[in-house]
């Protein structure tokens, strides 16, 4: 192991919190390098959910009995934690959804269906995950708005200088971008994009699915109007996502999902919507999932987001350095100081599926595919890449095993 900078968290020690590492794969310890797809779970989070089910479970809101009160409290405590996590002004601006994808669809449908029309421009980036691309493309299509894409430069960074040219004489109404790219790890200048969007009278929608788990995110500092993330990528459970939105926008918006709990009065003639956040939370909430999310936020908060970011930065520097030893490897994306803990690469003459499979035989889990970023793949001129992604439990030895496995794949198949 060649990393010399002192890590500000002790990943070896933290691994003990994650039961998944107790098993071995093909007789080898698990090197889980696919945290960008979904993170593993600490015992503390799992226990919080089980405890909730065992002691405090009932349907939330409006129940008069104690169990229902306890469950409501637990759900609302999770909302408060999510609110503080992203420095949101008010907890009622925090809406629980099923995942980041649904959060982004909520904005596209509920804001877009009513506010977009011919002549309007919806701008996404060439770097977007499909979840912040396809909903806008679809709603733009339904409303007659024009759907456009801000291109990338050769280094995988947004061509902010192209903003004016891409929008042209259209009326920019939505600018949608991720804060951190799940394919390249690029950290985007959302604050600058938000400022530009607001100058043009557009709303700024930030997909922070790859950011919130890995660094301190502050919606006020970013200046965005909406921000989405998922629980499962930040040590929380599957089945829950978050949408934050500015209260005045959420209040002016139509609702999205309709049904139980999101109404005030229902009559045949007319229905009136409940107040925030309930207006956007139809049906039974992901209650245990919210409790798990809250526990995960506590867990990460104790470790510290600065320590996590620093740790991943060291790993990514180390990985880029190690890969530069291999002439057959093509790396994609910006330099370490402008990227998060994600490394996408290809191996000359070896298909990513084969690389990933050979690595799996070594107990190293990486992803091979288009990473839900087909427009980016088109730009890169490839069908797929290999992607290794890191988290607080990643140790440099795992990167060594990754590099060793890539060497083997090249030798065997290249």
């Amino acid at each position, binding site marked *: 192991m060649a990393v010399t900078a002192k890590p500000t968290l002790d990943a070896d020690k933290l691994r003990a919190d994650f039961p998944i590492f107790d098993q071995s794969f093909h007789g080898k310890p698990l090197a889980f390098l696919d945290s960008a797809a979904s993170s593993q779970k600490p015992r503390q989070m799992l226990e919080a959910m089980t405890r909730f089910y065992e002691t405090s479970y009932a349907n939330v809101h*409006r129940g*008069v009995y104690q169990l229902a009160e306890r469950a409501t409290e637990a759900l609302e405590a999770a909302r408060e934690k999510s609110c503080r996590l992203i420095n949101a002004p008010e907890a009622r601006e925090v809406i629980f959804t099923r995942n980041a994808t649904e959060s982004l669809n909520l904005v596209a449908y509920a804001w877009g269906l009513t506010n977009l029309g011919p002549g309007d421009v919806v701008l996404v980036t060439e770097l977007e995950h499909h979840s912040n691309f396809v909903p806008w493309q679809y709603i733009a299509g339904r409303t007659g708005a024009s759907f456009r894409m801000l291109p990338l430069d050769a280094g995988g960074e947004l061509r902010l200088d192209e903003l004016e040219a891409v929008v042209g004489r259209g009326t920019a109404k939505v600018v949608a971008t991720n804060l951190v790219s799940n394919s390249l790890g690029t950290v985007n200048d959302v604050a600058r994009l938000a400022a530009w969007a607001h100058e043009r009278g557009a709303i700024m929608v930030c997909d922070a699915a790859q950011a919130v788990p890995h660094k301190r995110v502050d919606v006020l500092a970013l200046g965005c109007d909406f921000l989405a993330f998922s629980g499962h990528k930040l040590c929380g459970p599957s089945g829950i996502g978050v949408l934050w939105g500015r209260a005045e926008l959420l209040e002016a918006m139509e609702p999205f999902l309709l049904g139980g709990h999101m109404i005030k009065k229902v009559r045949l003639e007319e229905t009136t919507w409940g107040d925030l956040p309930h207006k956007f939370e139809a049906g039974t909430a992901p209650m245990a999932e919210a409790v798990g999310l809250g526990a995960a936020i506590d867990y990460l908060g104790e470790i510290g987001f600065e320590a996590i970011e620093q740790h991943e930065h060291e790993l990514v520097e180390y990985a880029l350095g190690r890969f530069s030893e291999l002439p057959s490897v093509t790396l994609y994306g910006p330099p370490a100081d402008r990227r998060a803990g994600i490394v996408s690469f290809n191996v000359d003459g070896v298909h990513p599926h084969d690389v990933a499979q050979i690595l799996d035989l070594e107990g190293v889990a990486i992803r091979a595919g288009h990473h839900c970023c087909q427009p980016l793949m088109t730009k890169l001129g490839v069908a797929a890449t290999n992607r290794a992604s890191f988290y607080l439990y990643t140790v440099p030895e795992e990167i060594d095993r990754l590099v060793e496995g890539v060497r083997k794949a090249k030798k065997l198949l290249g």
Partner: protein
Amino acid sequence: MADRYAGLVSGFDDLYRENILDHYKNPRNHGRIEPAGASAEGMNPLCGDEVTITVAFDEDGETIGDVRFEGRGCAISQASTSMLTELVKGRRAAEVLAFDKDELLDEVGIPLTPVRLKCAILGLHTLKVALGRATGAETDADEDIDVR
């Protein structure tokens, strides 16, 4: 969490104390003043609790000379509104508009879970809206209570 609740409502004696039962069964200041110096109807759509409050001001146009309520709903909502009318009679509108809900809750005197809290403050919120309208003062909205 269990602990907090274990202490919170420990039996009938706590939650349905004599004075609540008394106010519920024998509401003070029951009825309606017509014409009224200030009035409003409040309703909690979630449980259907309703109160209508009417106020008569003294000659200074500020002091609550008389206040009456009618309504239907749970014991907490009706008893607390009854207690409220006793608390505010003789006070100035501005004073009541600044009235801290804790003062009323102290009078109610029992621990309340969030759902029941809405019942307990229905009357107070409705009265504030009535006084706000009559005097042109702003009152905070309560998201769960509809006032007409």
